[in-house]
Each structure stands twice: as C-alpha cells, then as structure tokens.
C-alpha cells in the first residue's frame, strides 16, 4: 500500500490543474523553415547528413503523403490541422553530432534532471539507482545523449539514435526500416517517413539477453513544432530485450502534433517487451492546448516461437490515436497487448491493438483497461484476425471500462475475423462505474475521497500494472492518481 499512499501524497501537493512536466526550457534552437514541402524534407535529411538512398526514401514518402487524406474513422474530434503552419525540425543549438555527457548543454541536463530521468552513469554506477537503465534522451527533433553505450557494446548490443545508426549501421537500417510499417501504411506513418527526426535504434545480436533495460525519453519543448520520432528495434534469433519509453511536453495553449512510428522485429525465438508511459501534456481543464498523438506502432514476430509484448499506460495527450499491433507471422509466435488508457478533462482516446495471426499455432492476449473521467471520451478499438492458413490461432481479449462521473463516455469497438475454422477467439468486455456506495464504503473505513478513488482504480488496473517493470509500475501508479485528480466531486 506504500505506493497508494505515495500516490495520494503526490496528488495532495499538486494544484487541481497542474501538469507536473509543463515547464519550458529556454534554449536556442536550429529550426527548419516553417511549413512542409520537398525542401523541408531535403533540409532535414541534409542536417542529419543522410545517404542519398534515405533522402530519396523520404521524398518518395512525401510525394505519396501529398496524395493521401487524413483518416477520420476514429472516434475523435479536432479542428483541421494546418500542416503548413508547423515546424518540422528543431534542434537545440550545438547538438549536431553524437555527444558524451560532458559535452551536453548543462541547460538540457537540468531539464532531464527536473523530469527525473537519470542521465549520469556515475550516479547510477555508484548504486544510487538499484537497477540500471540505459537512456536515449530525445529533445524535440534530436537525440541529445545516450548512456551506457560502451557497456552495452561489450555485449554486442547496439543502442543509439537512429540518425547515428543510419551512418554507422547502414545495412541493418536499410534492411529493416519500413519493413513492418511500410512507407504507404497510413497518413501519419507516411508523414513520419518523410520528416522523421530522431528516435532510438536497437539491435540485439543472436542469443544475447540485453544486460539492462533500455529506455528512450521523448521531450517536446519548442513551440509549434511537431515531433516525428522513429524507433526501430531488432531482436535477432534467441535474444531478449525490454524497452521502456516515456514522454512529456510543456504546457502550451496551442495544440502540438506528435506522429511517431515504432517498428519491432523479433526473429526466431526472440522476445521483445515494449513498455510505454505516455504523459504528453493533455490540455487544460477547458480543453485548450495539448498534444495530438497520432502514433503507428507495430511489431513483427517474424521468426518461429518469437514473442512481442506491448504494455502501455496512456494518461496524456489531448487526442490519442494509437494501436500497437503484432503481426504473428512465425509459427508458434505470440503477441500480447496490455493497456491502461486514462482520460480526464476533455481528452479523447481512441486506442487498442491489432493481432494478425498468419503463422500456425500462434496465440495472442489482449487486456485493456479504459478509465474515463471528466468530460472525456475513451474508445477501445481492436482487431483480431486469422488468415486462412493460420491453423489453431488463439486469442483471448478482455476489455474493461470504468466510468468516473456522469459526463464521460466509454466505447468498445472490436473487429474479429477468422478465416480458418480452427481459430479460437474469445472476447470479454465489461463496463462499470465507481459507485457512490463503493466510495462511501472506503471512506467509512478511513480513506478520503481521492485515496478511495485511487485504491479502486488501482484495483481495476491491477492485471496490467503487473506487466510493467517494477520501477515503472510505481511511476504508473502515481501517474494514474494524478491523472484522475479532480475527477471526484
């Protein structure tokens, strides 16, 4: 119960409308001219000193994007985005190349310190942190530092900004980039392919168990700037990696665009565990500002007996449009999706997953917990599909929604399609409400209203929290309470 107590203490120290990570870093930036055209694409590619094939790849994506229309099928409502009114590249001055910690602008280091992200290897080595986590810190469009590279290198693990990987490991990048999420996949993925800035690249060699957790921390700082990160993770045969991703942004009155692409590839007997705690600025209590989060995340279980597991805790963003998916191509491969999506205020969430069963004897599991409070709308949208050759595909889906108050909405939209008669798909769904009686019961036993709500919600999401790495689970628990702040009247 220490965590719940901590949660409550954290909540109490905050103002009703306070987003903890809403501060701005004053730092000079090098930006691309406003707007989007072929020159913008060339500008970004040139800044990153990319080879010609990648410049062409981007331009091809840009030309396709121009012919595409923004998807409108999600249950989210927002004004038309003016893509010409945005900056597509912004880098803190003087961060052009890879850096060691000593070379990083102290202002940036202070930013990450304030966010509670450990960047100093010394401190971590000295045992201040019990478990070691290697961090790639991405600030607007560039990676500012990656820790523990040397030590990971000894195990043969590559962990670096993707812009660096393009130059240092061109054959790996060229082989896998766009192989899970094709350039033409969807409007936002195609846009990302044209203008992607930075993100992480991970390669785990055959048979290697990555010696520590890898994590990337994304921060949007600059005004009117989109962040288009690109992450590529390859787990070679028989390897294992656990990867964490965190996101925050300053409070701003206007909306900011975030359109990321994440591709995971698991070869034979490999396992990738990918966890996200997404806490982008959600907008204020009137629904002003906040991040538009349009993300394409997909994993390919390419080899036999491979496994990909997505765990997400989504509490931020004004709009979330996100469906981390698994292509179960290898025989006996397994996909998992564990999600906690919390919406409060005026947030709109349309999130879920796709499990595409292609190989034989593949299995998948989906556990989704949606919590809506305030005037928010929270939709689970999920697809489970078995190809006609996918013998013995198995899926279990459990989709629970919890409503707090009477002005929010929860929606469940499952798409289930089996083209092979041996498939066994199960779908369970519930919708419930925290009742006044439940709250009163807890309060009569001595818990104040926020403590009682935190306890009930933590019980509701327990199955998913258990999937998170330990430190993240505690963080997530705190975040849940903060996100629901002010939801009990």
């Amino acid at each position, binding site marked *: *119960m220490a965590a*719940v*107590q901590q949660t409550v203490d954290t909540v109490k120290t905050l103002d009703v409308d306070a987003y903890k990570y809403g501060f701005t870093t004053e730092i000079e930036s090098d930006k691309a001219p406003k707007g989007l055209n072929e020159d913008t694409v060339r500008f970004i590619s040139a800044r990153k000193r990319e080879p010609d094939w990648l410049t062409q790849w981007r331009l091809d994506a840009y030309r396709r994007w121009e012919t595409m229309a923004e998807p409108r099928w999600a249950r989210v409502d927002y004004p038309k985005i003016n893509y010409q009114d945005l900056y597509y590249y912004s880098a803190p001055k003087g961060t052009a190349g890879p850096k060691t910690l000593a070379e990083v602008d102290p202002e940036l280091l202070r930013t990450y310190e304030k966010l509670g992200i450990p960047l100093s290897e010394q401190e971590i080595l000295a045992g201040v942190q019990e478990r070691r986590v290697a961090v790639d810190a991405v600030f607007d469009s560039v990676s500012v530092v990656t820790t523990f590279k040397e030590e990971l290198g000894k195990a043969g693990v590559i962990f670096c900004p993707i812009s660096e990987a393009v130059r240092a490991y061109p054959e790996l990048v060229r082989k896998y980039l766009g192989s899970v999420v094709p350039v033409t996949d969807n409007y936002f993925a195609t846009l990302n392919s044209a203008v992607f800035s930075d993100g992480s690249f991970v390669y785990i060699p055959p048979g290697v168990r990555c010696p520590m957790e890898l994590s990337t921390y994304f921060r949007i700082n600059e005004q009117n700037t989109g962040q288009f990160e690109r992450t590529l993770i390859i787990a070679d045969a028989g390897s294992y990696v656990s990867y964490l991703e965190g996101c925050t942004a300053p409070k701003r009155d206007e909306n900011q665009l975030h359109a990321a692409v994440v591709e995971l590839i698991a070869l034979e007997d490999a396992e990738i565990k990918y966890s996200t705690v997404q806490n982008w600025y959600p907008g204020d209590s009137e629904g002003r500002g906040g991040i538009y989060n349009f993300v394409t995340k997909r994993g390919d279980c390419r080899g036999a007996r491979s496994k990909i597991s997505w765990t997400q805790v989504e509490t931020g963003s004004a709009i979330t449009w996100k469906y981390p998916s698994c292509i179960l191509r290898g025989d006996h491969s397994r996909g998992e999706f564990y999600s906690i999506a919390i919406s409060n205020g005026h947030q709109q969430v349309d999130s879920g997953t796709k499990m595409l069963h292609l190989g034989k004897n593949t299995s998948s599991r989906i556990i989704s917990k949606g919590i809506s409070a305030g005037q928010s709308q929270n939709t689970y949208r999920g697809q489970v599909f078995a190809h006609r050759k996918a013998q013995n595909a198995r899926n279990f889906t459990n989709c629970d929604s919890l409503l707090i108050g009477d002005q929010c909405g929860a929606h469940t939209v499952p798409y289930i399609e089996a083209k092979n008669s041996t498939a066994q798909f199960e779908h369970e769904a519930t919708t419930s409400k925290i*009742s*006044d*009686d*439940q709250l*009163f*019961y*807890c*309060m*009569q*036993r*001595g*818990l*104040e*209203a926020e*403590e009682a709500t935190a*306890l*009930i919600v*933590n*019980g*509701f*999401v*327990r*199955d998913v929290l258990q999937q998170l790495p330990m430190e993240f689970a505690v963080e997530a628990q705190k975040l849940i309470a903060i996100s629901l702040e002010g939801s009990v009247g």
Partner: protein
Amino acid sequence: MLEIENLHVRVAGKKILDGLNLTVEDGQVAAIMGPNGSGKSTLSYVVAGRADYEVEQGSIKLDGADILEMSPAERAARGLFLVFQYPLEIPGVATMTFLKAALNAQRKARGEAELPTLEFMKQVRAAAAKLNISQDMLKRPVNVGFSGGEKKRMEVLQMALLEPRFAILDEMDSGLDIDALKTCAEGVNALRGEGRSLLVITHYQRLLNFIPPDVVHVMSRGKIVRSGGPDLALALEATGYADYTEGAAA
C-alpha cells in the same frame, strides 16, 4: 458517547428523520428497533456521514465533538464504525491491502505511526482465526464472490482490527443463517467493554438474543418513541409494531 439532538433530515426532499433525540453512553449497548421505513438505516448513514442526506436541524456529537461537518473518513478516524447491511465489493483490491490502507489512513489521521507490516499481519491473522476467516479469503478481492455470511464476518473482522469507539450494526442479521449469526455475534461480543459503545439496529428480537442490549429504543416515523430495558424487545416481539405505527404513512 454519542449524543443526537433534535435531528431533522430529508432525503430527496422527503422528511425521514423528524426531531430525533438519542444518547448512547460509553460502554453501553443500545438497540434500535422499528418497522420498515421508520428511518433506521437513514440514521446510521447520517451518523457515518454519507452524502445526499440533507440535515436541516440538530446536532450529532461523538465524545463531545460535533461531527456533522466532518468527512466520513474523519469520523472513522475518531472511532466511528458502521457494519454495512450490504457490504460493497471492490474488484482487484486484495482484502489484506484494503485492511492495511484503512488502518493506516486512520492512524495517520490521528497522528500515529503506520503499523509495521509484520505486526499488522499478526493482528489480522489472530482476528481472522477467531472469525473462521481463511488466509485465502484475505488474499481475495474485497467481498468479491463472498457469500452473505462471509461478507458479514469480514465486517466484524474490520471492526476488530480498527477498534472503534462507537460501532453501528445496521441489520447485521439480514442474510445470515443461524450458525453465521452466532459466529458474527460472538465476534461482536468479544469487542464489548473497554468503554466501547454499540448501536444495534434491527427489525427482529432474534439478533438481541445473541447480542443482549443494555437499553432498547423504539423508532417510528423518524424519531425515538419509546425507550426501555431488554424486556421491551421481548414485548415488541409479542405485540408487533402496530402500537407505534398507527396513522403512519404506509
């Protein structure tokens, strides 16, 4: 000591308590009997501080302090406990976790240190054994899938653990077979004394055979209409409530 003076309460516009006066002394076991709709459950909810009850007039004092403006949690920390007629389920929250959260919240509100986990476990196990509550039940989510008897035993376990100054038992006998009733009553009786007061609310004399009261109050149409010794309950069993409800709305 609980002192209620001239209490007037409306629920959704309807008058339920109409000038109720009641005093329960330290260490006293008082029974309130009355027909359906006389306001017994409303009384227990108002004392415990449930929202949606409009107190128009009057005061409720616990050990001399006016508790009407206090939150339910503050009242609980001052030693008020309600055995619910229908205990609530809390999915996903292990009973042990819930007990610890409740106990520590109350201790914190009183400025006391948290109970060390080992000491806490010891206390829970001892109390659970007396009430026939298995370790397995303590690991299961609060009241989820519990039978009526198990839920009531869990209420008594919470009472034993939280050691209230003043406990209200709201129709504790409803939904209990005779064996379960005996176990619960024994649990409650073990907590009698040490200045602890009990307010036993019931329709039937039966419960009072197991938890003998010091005084009996009869409630009708939102107020106490008669008070007496234990024999008053027996008389009621014989004659029914007709004497007290004449002219009352159905």
